[in-house]
C-alpha cells in the first residue's frame, strides 16, 4: 500500500477541492486503506450532520418575509454619492490647503500638531480571548491609554479617542501601545486596524504615521514589514462613484458615505510611492509581504461559546 496522504489532502478530498489527478489518486488509495477511508467517512458524516442541523435551525429562524416587508414599507434606496467636477474636487481643496498653509506659516508661531489627535484614548477588549499585559481581561473593562504606561495587547480591541469629534477604531493582533503627545502609538505591532466610527484619526504604527480614515476599510501592519496589504478608498473621489468603484468604497459608503479618505505614511518610500497619488485614491494597495498572512480582520465580535460576552452578556 502506498504511503497515506497528508490529512490536509484528505480534507481537501472530502471538501471536493482536489483536481482530477489528485482525486483519482486518493480515490484509489481510499479503496485500499481503511484508516484513511474511515477518516474521510467520519469527516463527511460529521459535516452532513452539522449541515442538516443548521439547515433545520435556519428553516425555523428565517426572516426573509420580515426583510421584504420592511423594504416594501419603505422602498427607498439612498442615492450614491454624486461625483463632483474636477475643479471642485482638486482645485478648490488645493487652493484651500494653500491658503491654510500660508496662514499657518505666517501667523502661527507655535509648534503645530497635526490634526486628528486625541485628547484622551481608552480601549477595551472585544472578546474574552484578548489579553492586556499577558492577562485575560473582562471585555467590558475600559483601560485609559496613557503616555506613562505602555500596554502589551494581544487580540481584538476597540479604541475610543475623544476629542471634538470622537473616533473609534478596532485593532486586531499584537502590539505594544501607549499615548505619546496625544497620539496613540503602536509599537512592535502586527495588527489590523479599522476605523469603526468618526471622521478619522492619526496614529503611529511601527514608527509610521497613519491616518485612519472613514474610507479605509482596514489597515494591516506588521512589525517585520513597513506596511502590509490593505485596500482603501476615497469616499468622495469621482472614481468611487462610477460603476467600477472599489469594494472598499462600497462598504465604506455604507457606514460613512460622505467622508473623504486618505492614508498618509510619511517615511516609507514604498508605501509613499503607492499612496502619493491622490488621483489613484479610489483604489490603492499598500503591500508588504506579511510573513504569515493568517490572522486578518474578521474576528471582532464574541464567539458563540457559552462564555460571558465582552459587553456584558
Amino acid at each position: 500500500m502506498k504511503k497515506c496522504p497528508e490529512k490536509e489532502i484528505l480534507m481537501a478530498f472530502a471538501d471536493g477541492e482536489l483536481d482530477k489527478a489528485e482525486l483519482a489518486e486518493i480515490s484509489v488509495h481510499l479503496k485500499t486503506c481503511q484508516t484513511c477511508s474511515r477518516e474521510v467517512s467520519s469527516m463527511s458524516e460529521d459535516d452532513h450532520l452539522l449541515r442538516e442541523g443548521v439547515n433545520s435551525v435556519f428553516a425555523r429562524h428565517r426572516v426573509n418575509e420580515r426583510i421584504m416587508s420592511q423594504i416594501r414599507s419603505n422602498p427607498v434606496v439612498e442615492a450614491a454619492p454624486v461625483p463632483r467636477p474636477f475643479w471642485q474636487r482638486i482645485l478648490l481643496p488645493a487652493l484651500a490647503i494653500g491658503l491654510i498653509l500660508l496662514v499657518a506659516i505666517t501667523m502661527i508661531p507655535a509648534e503645530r500638531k497635526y490634526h486628528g489627535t486625541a485628547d484622551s484614548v481608552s480601549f477595551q477588549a472585544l472578546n474574552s480571548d484578548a489579553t492586556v499585559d499577558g492577562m485575560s481581561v473582562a471585555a467590558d473593562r475600559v483601560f485609559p491609554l496613557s503616555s506613562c504606561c505602555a500596554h502589551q495587547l494581544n487580540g481584538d480591541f476597540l479604541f475610543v479617542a475623544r476629542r471634538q469629534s470622537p473616533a473609534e477604531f478596532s485593532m486586531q493582533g499584537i502590539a505594544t501601545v501607549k499615548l505619546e503627545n496625544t497620539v496613540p502609538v503602536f509599537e512592535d505591532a502586527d495588527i489590523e486596524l479599522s476605523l469603526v466610527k468618526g471622521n478619522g484619526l492619526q496614529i503611529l504604527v511601527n514608527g509610521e504615521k497613519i491616518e485612519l480614515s472613514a474610507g479605509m476599510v482596514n489597515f494591516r501592519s506588521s512589525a517585520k514589514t513597513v506596511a502590509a496589504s490593505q485596500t482603501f478608498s476615497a469616499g468622495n473621489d469621482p472614481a468611487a462613484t462610477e460603476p467600477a468603484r472599489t469594494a472598499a468604497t462600497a462598504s465604506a459608503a455604507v457606514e460613512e458615505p460622505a467622508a473623504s479618505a486618505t492614508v498618509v505614511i510619511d517615511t516609507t518610500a514604498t508605501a509613499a510611492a503607492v499612496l502619493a497619488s491622490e488621483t489613484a485614491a479610489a483604489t490603492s494597495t499598500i503591500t508588504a509581504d506579511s510573513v504569515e498572512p493568517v490572522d486578518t480582520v474578521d474576528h471582532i465580535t464574541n464567539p458563540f461559546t457559552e462564555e460571558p460576552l465582552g459587553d456584558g452578556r
Partner: protein
Amino acid sequence: MNKHEMSDIELVKKVLAGEIELFSELVERYEKLVFSYLLSRLNDIQEVEDIVQDTFVKAFRHLASYDCERKFAGWLVTISRNLLIDSRRKAGRNIASTDLVTDVLLSDSLKETNAHPPEIIIRRERFRQIVNMIQELSEDLRTPFLLRVVNELPYQEIAEILNLPLQTVKNRIFKARGVLREKRETYEEMS
C-alpha cells in the same frame, strides 16, 4: 429571463431600476450565508435574526453604493460585520439571553425526529457532541469552517467573502477539522 437565472449584478440593476420585489431573490440566495456567519459569532438566536434582517435592509438602502465588481456575498458579510461591531458597542443590547444559539441548535434541529429508534438517538448524541466541540473552536476557525460545511462553499469563495488569503482559509478549516478530530478521538476514548 427567470429571476433564478439572473446573476447577482443583474438582480441588483433591476432592483435599482425599481423592481424591488427582485430583492427577495438576493435574500433567498444569501440569507443562509449571513445566518451561518452570524451564528458562528453570536450567542443569541434573536440577535442573529435581527442582524440578518438589518443586514439585508441596509444592503437594500445602500444598493446604489454597491460595487458591482465585488461579490455580493462579501459585501453582505461586511455589512453584517459592521452591524455586529455596532451591536457590541451598544451595551444595553447585550442582555443575557434565554435563546442561546447552542440550545436552539440542539433543540430545533432535532424536532423532526419524534421517534427514537437507536440510530436517531446515536445521531442526536453525535450532533450534540459536534455542536459542543464547535463551541470550543475559536471564532477564527469556526467562521470559515461553518461557511464551508453549512453553505458548502469552495475555499476560494470563502476567502473572497471573508477577505482573507486563500491559504489562510485552507489553514483555518484544516485546523478546525484537526481540533474537532482530536476532540472526537478523546471523546471516543472516554466513552
